[in-house]
């Protein structure tokens, strides 16, 4: 490339960051801030991305409260609560990884990242168990969605008369699979990103070890995934009985 870098105008951090500094930035501080703002603007788009789904859910939930409540009885809140705990804990380990990166404790970073990835796998495992029970009862939306209110146990009936509109129940499961599925896709992407980060740390790559910000960016993403679940859990699993 032609052209040399001009002298940084603002006072730079003379920490030997040059190898991690990209040519378009004046100094590592500018680069880090750019990364952070970039990540946050990306998270804004993610908020809107999930937001449309959350809105759709809210709308149909308000309209079909009773049917949604009956449909949600098939979900196991205990598994949901367990998964919430797992994700919260993984957020904690992630933030500890970032803190270790700040303190340049490489082995700690790797340890915490490993735990985080493990948590992600546990989460997905539990999700698999949940999904398979829905599939077993034909509660996935589509042509073979169950027409039998009995899948919801006694909640579908009052005095032996079926009380649930299975079309609306299908709507609920459409949203359930849509939202938790999209969240799971984010978890899977997160596992990929975390693993890549772990490898970079393992290989002493300058791009992550010189400054903690790349690690923090992954952390921001991971916390966002956690954030989505924080709202999904009460909305999907913890519906109060309508009366």
């Amino acid at each position, binding site marked *: 490339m032609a052209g040399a870098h001009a002298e940084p105008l603002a006072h730079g951090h003379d920490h030997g960051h040059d190898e991690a500094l990209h040519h378009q930035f004046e100094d590592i501080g500018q680069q880090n801030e750019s990364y952070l703002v970039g990540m946050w603007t990306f998270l*804004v788009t993610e908020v809107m991305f999930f937001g449309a789904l959350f809105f759709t859910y809210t709308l149909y939930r308000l309209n079909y409260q009773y049917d949604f409540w009956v449909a949600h009885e098939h979900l196991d809140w205990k598994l949901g609560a367990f998964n919430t705990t797992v994700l919260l804990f993984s957020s904690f380990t992630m933030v500890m990884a970032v803190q270790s990166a700040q303190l340049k404790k490489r082995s700690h970073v790797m340890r915490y990242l490993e735990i985080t990835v493990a948590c992600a796998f546990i989460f997905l495992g539990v999700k698999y168990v949940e999904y398979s029970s829905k599939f077993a009862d034909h509660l996935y939306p589509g042509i073979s969605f169950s027409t039998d209110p009995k899948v919801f146990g006694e909640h579908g009936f009052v005095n032996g008369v079926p009380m649930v509109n299975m079309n609306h129940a299908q709507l609920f499961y459409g949203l359930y699979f849509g939202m938790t599925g999209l969240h799971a896709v984010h978890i899977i992407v997160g596992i990929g990103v975390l693993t890549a980060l772990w490898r970079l740390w393992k290989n002493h790559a300058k791009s992550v070890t010189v400054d903690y910000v790349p690690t923090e960016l992954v952390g921001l993403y991971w916390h966002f995934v956690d954030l989505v679940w924080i709202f999904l859990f009460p909305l999907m699993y913890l519906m109060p009985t309508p009366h």
Partner: protein
Amino acid sequence: MSATSIGTSEFPKQGQEEVNYLNYDHTLRSWLTTGDHKRIAILYLISTTFIFFLGSLAAGMIRFELTSPAGVVLESETYNKVFSSHGVIMVFFFLVLALPATLGNFLLPLMIGARDLAFPRLNLGSWYLYMVGAALMLSGLIFGGIDTGWTFYTPYSSMYSNTQVSLVIIGIFFSGFSSITTGINFIVTTHKMRAPGMTWFRLPLFVWALYATSVIVILGTPVIAITLLLVVFERLFHLPIFSPELGGDPVLFQHLFWFYSHPAVYIMILPAFGIESELIANFARKRIFGYHFVAFSTIAIAGLGFLVWGHHMFVSSQSMYEGLVFSLISFLVAVPSAIKIFNWTATLYKGNIRLQSPMIYALGFIGLFTVGGLTGLFLGSVGTDVHLTATYFVVAHFHYVMVGGTMMAFLGGLHYWWPKMTGRMFNDGIAKWNAVLVFVGFNLTFFPQFIVGWLGMPRRYHYYYFAPEFQPYNIMSSLGASALALGFLLPAFYLTASLFNGPKAGSNPWGAHGLEWETSSPPPVTNFLETPIVTDEVYDFDPVSEYEQLRAAQDLLDEGGNPGGSY
């Protein structure tokens, strides 16, 4: 002008060709793996131009077909696919990104004195996302096409259309993420990469416009991405979200769709406003009148633009009260738009106006956008909209804004910055007449559509043999379209020709003001050989100053054999 960038040390040695972003490496690989925003802008320019002519071809077929009340050659099914392709191509693959991704990409770092965008690889990635999206969309059009219109209203798109809706939607999804990544890049760059001294109120108005556009992009695009994805799921897996048969509401789709697609209109027009401000200021040799008002009105439009989507749904069985609220807010958007028009006009006062081709486009823009904007009032007014919705009146209105506004500004901007991008001057005489041709052809095409829409001709109609009174207007419109087509084709030829035989442009052939004119044409790889320090205000012209004479002398010098043009 920035004091530091005018230094003798930067003169290239005589007779030695300067290394610039175009010639530092000629391999295809170097183009396809480049991180340079200028090269990516050129990649975008080539691909969007191709896409634009595809969309125009579809438009030509529509206009040809409508000359006769009973159609000319096409079957209804084909006609529907043609107009849907026109809409999808033009809206999702041309208008929302043509200005930001080509001119914006090229100029944003230059205008703020940065070496590149904040994330060059992301920028390249966004071009690839766009290409993948376009490829998916085009393959969808080839293998069956779509007949839903670009609006994809459910349940037709999700349960009835027997065409390649899913493929095209996934293409749009990719292109949407291309926009988002570009938007993120622009926002971060504007926030973090400005040269020393480049304060917010020294930013050229094009940068303001790009910033506002990017904000809309990142806030709106995800919503349509997920909404269209739900349509795909509904088609493929019968995930029931917008189907009335299972309790979904088709109107919800329209809400979510327009939540993005109305702001998207501002994604298309705001950069055009920015270019317009640049052109008016630089060719009137005068600082834009009411700079702060113009800048803030850009932000106001971006913000208010998110609150008016319901005016597309006044007759869609939306509740009456909601309609009234949306109508009120829609009228409020008219105010910042009016501010802009008046300020541009006022800028001309006591200017020193050069009627070169970019300025002709800019003046044409004012006329066409005024008509386009004011006819928007008919549609924003909840009462009058009832009769006019989905007639040719709407078609005429948004073409006045999209073609008369965005395309005029795009052509104006392209002519204006062409010497900067390529280092070559084009034939300004032809270009001026072409601008007039576009203006006349455009009016001939779309003005009759206002009348025929007011008479009640519905859009997306293939036949109107039952209403022969519509025909004369349709014939006028089709005649105008031929002129317009010529007006769009000509620049492709004479601009391309200028690459081979155009005279070398100096660094500042228009005598314009702005950081991008401080560097050589074409700019070096890192844009500026030394980080510029901005010490003067934006558009700091004085119509009668010595600066003017100095600049004229400089022009002479450039013509007299200073190939690099950097001074």
